[in-house]
């Protein structure tokens, strides 16, 4: 058929039926259903929960399905079933996904700003929302908030988490890893597989190192600083922000590790390395979030 445009037409691959999504749906459903059961039983004070088994089943189904799913996509790609247009779909898809992640973090950063700039002042009776300090005699607004209004229920932390030390080390690790993953990317572009594998491996190692440091940091916070999830809003925002970030680092590291495996197997060419790039973008995103955390949670928060 004629077209009014000079863009060349490429056939778009539309897969036939697929069993993958339904299994992924079942998997994700069992996963959250199991988690729900565990949490409810936990809060009801029960020692054992059937939820663990449901969660494990769900996790396995989901994990196995996703593995098959991604393998299928890779196979289809290697079978040259995808056009450049198809690749653009993946690129767009990943970019919009990352945008949605940005908004997820925005909600938690927003909560942090709101608390710091408004609500603790309001509790202390300042700033135009009424004399709430009448309810909390002696409460003083400060950040980090070590003395909570209700110390019995939220027993504050003794000390805040400084930015020097582990957090700084972690910043260096993550920033460095953004560079190393970039070098690995150059490796692909130059067709230098050795460079790719080496620098990607270093990146993964940096990611793991970051996670280890974070575990150490959490231990330190719990054992020595009294900084816990239950320590009031400072502990709350601290753990929720760094915790979700940590979860994303874990996922990112896992993705990069998979890419490392694929790189060793000989995947990726200079014009065909979307899987790698997606993982790398994700990694950069995680890195940027950390910079935000480092500034707002650590430096300005201690």
């Amino acid at each position, binding site marked *: 058929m004629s077209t009014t445009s000079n863009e060349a*037409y490429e056939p778009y691959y539309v897969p036939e039926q697929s069993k993958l999504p339904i299994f992924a749906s079942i998997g994700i459903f069992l996963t959250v259903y199991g988690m729900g059961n565990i949490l*409810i039983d936990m809060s009801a004070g029960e020692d054992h929960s059937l939820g663990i088994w449901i969660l494990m089943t769900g996790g396995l189904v989901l994990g196995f399905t996703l593995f098959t799913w991604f393998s299928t996509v890779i196979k289809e790609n290697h079978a040259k079933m995808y056009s450049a*247009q198809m690749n653009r779909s993946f690129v767009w*898809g990943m970019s919009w996904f990352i945008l949605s992640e940005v908004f997820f973090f925005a*909600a938690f950063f927003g*909560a942090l700003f709101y608390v710091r700039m408004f609500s603790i002042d309001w509790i202390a009776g300042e700033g135009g929302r009424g004399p709430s300090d009448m309810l909390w005699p002696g409460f003083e607004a400060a950040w980090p908030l070590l003395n909570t209004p209700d110390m019995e229920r939220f027993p504050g932390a003794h000390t805040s988490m400084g930015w020097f030390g582990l957090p700084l080390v972690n910043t260096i690790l993550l920033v460095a890893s953004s560079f190393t993953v970039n070098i690995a990317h150059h490796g692909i572009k130059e067709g230098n597989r050795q460079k790719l594998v080496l620098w990607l491996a270093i990146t993964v190692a940096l990611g793991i190192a970051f996670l280890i440091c974070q575990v150490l940091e959490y231990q330190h916070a719990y054992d020595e600083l009294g900084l816990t999830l239950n320590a009031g809003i400072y502990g*709350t925002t601290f*753990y929720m922000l760094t915790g979700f970030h940590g979860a994303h680092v874990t996922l990112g590291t896992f993705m990069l590790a998979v890419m490392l495996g694929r790189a060793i197997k000989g995947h990726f060419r200079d014009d065909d390395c979307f899987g790698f790039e997606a993982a790398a973008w994700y990694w950069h995103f995680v890195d940027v979030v950390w910079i935000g955390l480092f500034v707002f949670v650590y430096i300005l928060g201690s």
Partner: protein
Amino acid sequence: MSAVIEEHHHDDHHHGPAKGIMRWVFTTNHKDIGTLYLWFSFAMFLLGGSFALVIRAELFQPGLQIVEPEFFNQMTTMHGLIMVFGAVMPAFVGLANWLVPMMIGAPDMALPRMNNYSFWILPFAFTMLASTLLMEGGGPNFGWTFYAPLSTEQGPPSTTFFIFAVHLMGISSIMGSINVIVTILNLRAPGLTLMQMPLFVWTWLITAFLLIAVMPVLAGVVTMMLMDIHFGTAFFNAGGGGDPVLFQHVFWFFGHPEVYIMILPAFGVVSAIIPTFARKRLFGYASMVYATSSIAFLSFIVWAHHMFTVGMPLAGELYFMYATMLIAIPTGVKVFNWVATMWQGAMTFETPMLFAIAFVILFTIGGLSGLMLAIGPADFQYHDTYFVVAHFHYVLVPGSVFSIMAAVYYWLPKWTGNMYDEALGKLHFWLSFVGINVLFFPQHFVGLAGMPRRVPDYNLQFADYNMVSSVGAFLFGFSQLLFLFIVIKCVRGGVKATDQVWEGAHGLEWTIPSPAPYHTFTTPPDLKDISEAHG
């Protein structure tokens, strides 16, 4: 149900669908998935509607007669949640699935397997959500807005399942919107520019963006709840330095754009139908696009108009009042454009057109009452009364829901190859139109006179209007069974539809046969008709 009904269509085309129920489970075809979404949404509409009927039955008279207050609250909550997340949103995603690829000449959605995944998560999520009603302690009972600390400190144990159900819906919506955006940006037929796309595609492009931006925020806020409930964090507890109002800010940052998510595609539908039956191009296509974008932008910066009474400082109050009022301007542009499209047209009034015209009138009524709500000091009197309930049902039911019905009547011949029964369609319209007004108009009055929302019982002065309203509810509710009947009848057979179906219809979807072949535009279409597509 849909498997049985749909089976004898479509199959005689190349790459025809597989047979049996597994066709629907494994499908990657945008039309199949669109059908699934639409049927699912209708089922949820009936479920959420039956909850509404429980509410209206209890409110038929003062006093408690049918349900206990505790259960009443569960009904209100589940009604709101199921209608919003189960009925309206999936219906629009279903329409997007069916129409976007056909309107832009794409072979399918950009990521077909993920498309199937987006759908199939939903039945699980809603089964989990609905089943909370049967659990010990009952289902969510804190309103669809689930304000903390009622939800975090006093919610039933099943709140945790509610939270995870919301997570699942969020995942589904985000994947669905990514698919829509990527399809529109990447799969347009060669030569089809953005400013040539039909408005339905435009509105969905913007809606999908809104979804990607705010569904994660919803996920964030339920996650904060989850932490407060199970892990002792203090987001929403002043004792730990948090603030219950923080919940409302985060929720409404999602919640306000959410209401536009439920109306923008409706604008798109109406912008397709009115020109067809007025036999005249859409007036002001470009300004429609800009207006839609402005509404989307404004929707991010007005959220706290739901919170005028929470005790924000004066500056905040004023800012949110002004910003909210601004939304009337682009919305007005849209309304005026539709009116101008009708002006000096050559109109006929088939069922889709009737629904579309009712949409314009009744949505405007709802929008104008919205504007009254936007006036901060006046909202102190309106807030959390039935006046608000009347406002949002006017924009949601004769707004979003009517537009969905208009869309179904309008495109049904294209989907099934058969004309629906016009006489029955008109009957359905008139029953709905009368029912909806009898149902919701009196709620303005009881609201102004002081009846709070979310109450199972009320004082005697409101008795008359509540009775009228309940009668309207049952009239409107049962009329929808007629809709079901009409759709099933049309799917099973009827007068064969032509390709163009409607005399004044323009656009790519009307160039292909009716019913639309299982696969369309495996090669790009001829665009000579496209200049007509947007008007």
